[in-house]
């Protein structure tokens, strides 16, 4: 067999690094999904009436909507009644200070590389740490507050800034967008809220770290980021979950709003538990993420490094409404073992001179299947709209697959839409070349893959680029061919 096959075999047994479980007393709602579940969540969070009504409307939509059937994988049956929709460390709905947080929880985040205590905090990065359904702590909050920046858990935003939440919630991703978005709007637990006031450049990276811990629960977080005129923010999310034989559902909604001249950079390093090498267990990562460039000259960039999850199914998109606005999507999606990814973006050009750029790098190894699906839509008023799409697939071994579905809908003949696609295999020649310089197979493959993904990795904030590179290597050590 070829060297590639050997690497595949050799690497296939790799363990998931973050698969441990935190032993802590939890407040877990009984499994089941009905209006009472929603009232229970809303009551736990002491929400205002309007939000409960909004949730209930979401639930009605969820019941009406049907599952999509266009995806390029077999949609697993999800037993919505078998899942618990609320799990929080016992007796706590809200932590007022770190002293109230169970040390076990702090240890958990520390183990994940996210220390929350003042003296250990990552410098230059403010973190909102979400554990199952609730936010445990948000660092650097006070410092940010001085600049008028709001960075807090979603639950807290509902209490403290209800007008802002009410004004923007659901305006980018309507509740009826798709069945999982509807579900999220009914049962969403926690998440992050960011508001950057006019003219403020957020001086540090904001990030949320999501951890699923409890068994038999789903995670349904919601993130809302508003960048007011001429502001800038770079935001990053990371995620992990314990190893379990059962699949767990993660159905988040993220909404970004950029006003005139504002810029939002949103990066994801997704490392949910991918399941074992036979495809048992793992997270279903069914997420709706969308941003709107509402104001003129605004810009939204999505960068995602997707290495985890049994199934990754998401299309972070940008609605380019403001004239001269820019949307970007940079993605590396890795599918190893039996992982599946059906991901890409939607760029909707509405305003004049709007530009979008899509760089997608799929990497498939083992029996992994990787689909790029992208929509570039140009409306009748989007004079001089420009899109460039580059969509590359890298295959490692011969049992994996790569698929590309680019859709283009243009209603304006001044628009220019460019699409380039390549598919390549990690060549034995490349591996041998590196071998001949003293580098072993495993490291050779890592180098080749990281080189291939570089254009996207370069988009990540410095602090996370190294982490993402490591993650790529580790993921592929699990299943490269």
């Amino acid at each position, binding site marked *: 067999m*070829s*060297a590639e096959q050997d690497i595949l075999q050799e690497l296939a047994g790799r363990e998931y690094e973050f698969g441990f479980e935190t032993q802590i007393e939890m407040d877990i709602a009984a499994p089941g999904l009905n209006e009472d579940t929603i009232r229970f969540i809303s009551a736990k969070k002491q929400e205002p009436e309007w939000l409960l009504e909004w949730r209930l409307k979401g639930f009605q939509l969820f019941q009406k909507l049907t599952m999509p059937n266009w995806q390029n994988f077999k949609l697993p049956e999800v037993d919505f009644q078998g899942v618990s929709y609320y799990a929080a460390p016992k007796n706590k709905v809200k932590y007022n200070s770190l002293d109230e947080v169970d040390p076990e929880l702090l240890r958990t985040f520390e183990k994940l590389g996210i220390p929350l205590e003042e003296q250990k905090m990552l410098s230059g990065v403010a973190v909102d740490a979400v554990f199952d359904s609730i936010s445990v702590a948000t660092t650097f909050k006070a410092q940010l507050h001085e600049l008028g920046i709001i960075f807090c858990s979603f639950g807290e935003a509902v209490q403290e800034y209800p007008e802002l939440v009410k004004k923007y919630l659901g305006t980018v991703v309507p509740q009826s967008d798709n069945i999982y978005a509807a579900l999220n709007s009914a049962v969403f637990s926690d998440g992050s809220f960011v508001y950057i006031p006019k003219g403020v450049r957020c001086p540090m990276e904001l990030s949320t770290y999501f951890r699923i811990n409890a068994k038999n629960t789903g995670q349904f977080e919601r993130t809302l980021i508003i960048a007011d005129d001429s502001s800038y923010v770079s935001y990053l999310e990371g995620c992990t979950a314990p190893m379990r034989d059962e699949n767990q559902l993660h159905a988040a909604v993220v909404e970004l709003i950029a006003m005139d001249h504002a810029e939002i950079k949103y990066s994801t390093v997704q490392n949910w538990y991918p399941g074992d090498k036979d495809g048992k267990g793992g997270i279903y990562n069914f997420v709706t993420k969308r941003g709107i460039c509402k104001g003129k000259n605004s810009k939204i960039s999505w960068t995602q490094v997707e290495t985890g999850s049994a199934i990754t199914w998401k299309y972070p998109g940008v609605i380019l409404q403001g004239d001269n606005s820019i949307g970007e999507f940079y993605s590396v999606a890795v599918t190893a073992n039996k992982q599946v990814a059906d991901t890409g973006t939607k760029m909707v050009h509405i305003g004049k001179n709007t530009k979008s750029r899509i760089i997608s790098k799929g990497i498939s190894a083992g029996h992994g299947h990787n689909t790029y699906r992208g929509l570039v839509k140009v409306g009748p008023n989007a004079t001089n709209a420009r899109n460039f799409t580059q969509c590359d697939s890298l295959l490692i071994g011969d049992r994996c697959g790569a698929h590309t579905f680019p859709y283009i809908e243009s209603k304006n003949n001044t628009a220019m839409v460019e699409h380039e696609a390549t598919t390549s295999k990690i*060549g*034995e*020649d*490349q591996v*041998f*070349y*590196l*071998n*001949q*310089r*003293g*580098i*072993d*197979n495993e*490291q050779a493959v890592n*180098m*080749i893959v*990281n*080189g*291939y*993904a*570089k*254009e996207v990795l370069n988009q990540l904030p410095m602090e996370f680029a190294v982490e993402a590179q490591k993650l790529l290597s580790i993921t592929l050590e699990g299943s490269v061919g």
Partner: protein
Amino acid sequence: MLDIKNLHAAVEGNAILKGINLTVKPGEVHAIMGPNGSGKSSLASVLAGRESYEVTEGSVDFLGKDLLDMSPEVRAREGLFLAFQYPVEIPGVSNINFLKTAVNEIRAYHGQPPMQAKAFLDMLKSKQKLMEFDANLMNRSLNEGFSGGEKKRNDIFQMAMLEPKLAIMDETDSGLDIDALRIVSAGVNKLRSKDNAFIMITHYQRLLEYIVPDFVHVLYNGRIVKSGTKELALELEEKGYDWLKEDIRLEEPVQ
């Protein structure tokens, strides 16, 4: 240093090397010439451990160890270097990072700690000067978009960095312009010592004027059919290979 005995190798069942015997001692430079398709690159590949070649007979001793028993990376770490006839491109991998990894892998194998950034940079600079290698190329991705000659020069630069005991240069001269040939040759001459050895595969006598070999061998149809000194190369330049082929045909038993 290198002792090849009756080496036979096949690709996909086709016999390519058919009984190679060759001994290389420290301090020596050997040139291997021969017509297209005679098996020169195949010999280099087999020595470097390319997986598609199956060794069917014979043995290779390298510095007292069984070379054929080692994986390609271990051969490299033991001090065998191959400058490829066609170096491959590895997009996005920075030349410098790649070199640093290679240097440190080899050091680790010999129980040495990784090189400090400063020391590595100093070495990089001194070798770059020695080989007159373009600093811009050093900062680019590994061979990505390099011209044919630039790739060859990058391989030789790597050779200078890795300081192998035995370097096999597969047609390093083809693709080099006149000045580059002179520069690369001068660099190689500076790398020569009593402890290392070179095998140069080439079609042209010209290279051998710059890097003067101790021995010249002619590989034909998977065998070394003639060995001599540098004068043999001159003779080949003049007469081509046909006279050798005829000699061989006469020697071969009638089937």
